[in-house]
């Protein structure tokens, strides 16, 4: 029902974390703000995000490129991009266990978004808001199952991921959602509500793990 995470486990990067839920596990790292590595990527008014996602097996394909564009959509509005004009922020994602068949990407994207969030906090990258992702499926009986197993996913009629911003410990605005399969309008709205509630249920734990990490940084005081 919950997740495991380890924050700040890598030495050579600014921020890092692992994130694991329902057999999906991912490790991410964040480095920045760096000097731009390729001049053509330089943006005069905002940061350039260099994101790369590596699958658990095999090399990256279009499937991973598509995940990169989705992740960039989330980060574009949540990272304070204006603050890092002409700089680069590198985000590396390595999947350790996909936890789903390759036809799907919802669970991976959920884990990636959450792990990147924790890494960004760990790296001290300026954020405009907190955010959190969750995913769910609708099964053949029209039942909504949050954070499904791979089997539930494969038998589902539709699958959904939603990322919400978090304001004062409550999920606030919908930043990104992606739904595939066949579903109705009402189901979509219900799914968004459920995802919103699900994210709320995580907040206290997220706060605790980040606080633990911060305390560890200040152990001497």
């Amino acid at each position, binding site marked *: 029902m919950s997740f495991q995470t380890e924050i700040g486990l890598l030495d050579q990067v*600014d921020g890092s974390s692992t994130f694991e839920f329902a057999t999906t596990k991912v490790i991410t790292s964040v480095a920045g*703000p760096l000097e731009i590595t390729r001049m053509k990527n330089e943006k005069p008014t905002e940061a350039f995000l260099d994101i790369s996602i590596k699958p658990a097996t095999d090399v990256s394909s279009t499937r991973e490129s598509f995940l990169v564009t989705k992740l960039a959509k989330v980060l574009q509005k949540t990272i304070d991009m204006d603050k890092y004009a002409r700089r680069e922020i590198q985000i590396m994602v390595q999947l350790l266990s996909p936890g789903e068949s390759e036809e799907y990407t919802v669970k991976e994207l959920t884990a990636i978004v959450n792990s990147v969030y924790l890494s960004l906090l760990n790296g001290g*990258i*300026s*954020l405009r808001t907190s955010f959190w992702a969750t995913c769910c499926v609708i099964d053949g009986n029209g039942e909504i199952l949050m954070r499904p197993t791979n089997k539930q996913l494969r038998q589902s009629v539709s699958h959904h991921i939603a990322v919400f911003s978090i304001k004062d410990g409550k999920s606030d605005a919908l930043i990104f959602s992606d739904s595939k399969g066949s579903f109705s309008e009402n189901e979509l709205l219900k799914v968004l509500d459920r995802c919103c509630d699900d994210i709320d249920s995580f907040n206290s734990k997220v*706060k605790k793990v980040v606080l633990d*990490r911060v305390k560890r940084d*200040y152990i001497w005081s």
Partner: protein
Amino acid sequence: MSFVLPGNQIQVKSANVVLGPNVDIAPGSINETVLTPTTAGMLKVKKANPQSSLYYVESNTKRYVPQINDFVIGVLFGAFGEYFRISLNSFSPPVLLNQYSFPNASKKNRPRLSNGDLVYARVSAVERNVDVELSCIDATTGKEGGFGVLSDGLVFDVKLAFARYLLFNSDAEIFTQLVKRCKFEIAIGVNGRIWIKTDDIKTTIACVNVIRNSQNWTKEELPAKIEDTFKVLKTN
């Protein structure tokens, strides 16, 4: 002091607010009475002066981002024109140090520095889109003020938050303990570098070990652990 995350809304009571590190005006708050932290950490409020209060979030990071009037230790790694190129942090953009930013420097009396030299300096200019500049002249007195080349000794890295803590708390427990045991000269850069010099190498290494390791020690275990480190020194 409380733990905050980005997105938390900090209601500000007084009208005059100074935004410190890691604090920004909350998106959407036009009248500027709501602040939000930009990263996770401990929110601190201090009186900056009688009228206004300073809000900032204390958080440890690994990468140093130069801020004006920070005291830093840099490594010289190049020179061009009348500037030296200084590295404050691995993989971060280099910063500049003007040759004339030394006390008493003139065209005829240039400071003699070579690659690899350590410099203790103050960040004198941070402008958007322009290289950061350092200076070895004290801003208020126009004199040396302790800045300049650091010769001999040993430099090592610590957490940024720890370096800040040591720089701003010269009465820190670790120093009172060290002072009892040896004589030393120390320079602390908020870019996470500490330079230390003692009379002999053994003591230097002991001091470095103590300071570096003490960032992972709790207050309670500090005296005993320092004792342990120095005991090894004596027996050898």
